[in-house]
């Protein structure tokens, strides 16, 4: 009588991550630091986004051995990334029993037309989105969690803010629509009608939405939480900063107390230098990660 891997169970794990910080880690030592600082999950990957940018070349799923070593080092959930459309990488990650798969634009896409059909998998998926239509297409394909994309590896929050405001603005505008207008909105968003109807009725996405891409400081975390994110992913922002232990704990604290400026202030003190950053407006079109996927 036991039903494993139902959508409720997949989306339910994202509910358990809410109000928390998911940190990119590249080895056991970083994973332990992240866990000890209060991360609610870690993302195991060989190179953080800022290094992927710097190195160039094709970015693929991480070495399974490295992911396994991180699974052995911590008890919090371990996530890992597969390339967009690369369902065979996702199958490998499922065989590894990672807790969540991120079908991620940070890696080089494997399929320029199709995302992974996520329904057959027992492991839940999180996917990036820059607008409501993109979020609902991913959910229609089986994603159990959404993260706004931002522009990974830059330390620049502007794209994350744009994507969050876009998604939440589009949700708000569905609010007053009639049934006929909802059908038109579904067409305009290129999104499944049933999902558009559900969002119009509830005023929210049917799954948890985190924010990713460019978070570098406690105040960044507070900003995106106040804009409606339900938790944050921090990639390069922690382990590319001067004092990862302190910054990791500070971003956790600011995510919990995001509405209390005095607490965000206290969390922001004495952290040393933030990561080296890149202004995302100065990136060439071909250097952008957030326009990967559709």
């Amino acid at each position, binding site marked *: 009588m036991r039903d494993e891997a139902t959508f409720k169970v997949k989306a339910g794990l994202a509910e358990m991550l809410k109000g928390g910080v998911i940190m990119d880690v590249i080895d056991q030592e970083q994973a332990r630091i992240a866990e000890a600082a209060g991360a609610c999950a870690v993302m195991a990957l060989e190179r953080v986004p800022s290094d992927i940018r710097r190195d160039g070349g094709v970015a693929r799923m991480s070495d399974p051995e490295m992911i396994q070593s991180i699974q052995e080092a911590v008890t919090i959930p371990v996530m890992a990334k597969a390339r967009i459309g690369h369902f065979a990488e996702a199958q490998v990650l499922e065989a590894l029993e990672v807790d969540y798969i991120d079908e991620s634009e940070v890696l080089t896409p494997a399929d320029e037309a199709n995302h992974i059909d996520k329904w057959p998998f*027992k492991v839940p998926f999180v996917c990036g989105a820059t607008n409501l239509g993109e979020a609902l297409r991913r959910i229609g394909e089986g994603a159990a969690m959404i993260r706004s994309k931002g522009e990974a590896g830059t330390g620049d929050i502007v794209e994350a803010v744009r994507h969050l405001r876009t998604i939440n603005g589009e949700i708000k505008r569905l609010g007053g629509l009639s049934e006929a207008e909802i059908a038109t909105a579904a067409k305009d968003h290129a999104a499944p009608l049933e999902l558009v109807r559900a969002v119009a009725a509830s005023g929210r996405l049917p799954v948890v939405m985190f924010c990713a891409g460019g978070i570098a400081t406690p105040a960044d975390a507070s900003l995106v939480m106040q804009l409606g994110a339900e938790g944050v992913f921090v990639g390069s922002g922690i382990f590319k900063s001067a004092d990862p232990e302190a910054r990791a704990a500070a971003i956790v604290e600011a995510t919990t107390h995001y509405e209390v400026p005095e607490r965000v202030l206290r969390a922001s003190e004495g952290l040393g230098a933030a990561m080296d950053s890149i202004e995302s407006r100065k990136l060439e079109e071909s250097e952008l990660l957030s326009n990967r996927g559709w």
Partner: protein
Amino acid sequence: MPPSGAAGDQITVGVLALQGDFEAHGLVLSRLGARVREVRVPADLDGLDGLVLPGGESTTITLGIERERLADPLRAFHASGKPIFGTCAGLIMLDREHLGIIDIRAERNAFGRQVRSFEAPLEIGVDGGPVKAVFIRAPWIAEHGPSVEILAEVEGHGVAAREGAVLVVSFHPELGDDDRVHELFLQSVRDARAAAA
């Protein structure tokens, strides 16, 4: 709106909101007529009639309790006789090895990683038949003292228990539309408040 009673009759229930699915608990409690307050610092406990420790990551919540110096205030809240309800990570937080508020030892992630998470009907002694229990990287009760009553088991392991005014379950009644487990808790909150008056 609450179904009945003047504001003075309404009970106020806190939900520990350091991390996890505290919002889902708040929605159920509000639906059942309770006033809900999110608890992040010790002062938030003042004047509450009952408290919920939600699901989430127990490591993260443990560190949050340390950072906010909430452990002693939570133990004092329990000592005052007010009901406490813990789900999943909340069950872990209340066990011997954490806050020591219920005489059990929880085994974390006892059913395995996320691919082993599941739903199953579970008889826990509430009217109306089994509840649809959602287990997510769930713990079970590995050991318990003599004053703990085990209310339900899966494969021989305790997944719901009560000791005095403390109720714990290793699944997530806050994630469905079946409010009976929360109703059971709220009844104990109302009873405790009536007894104290």
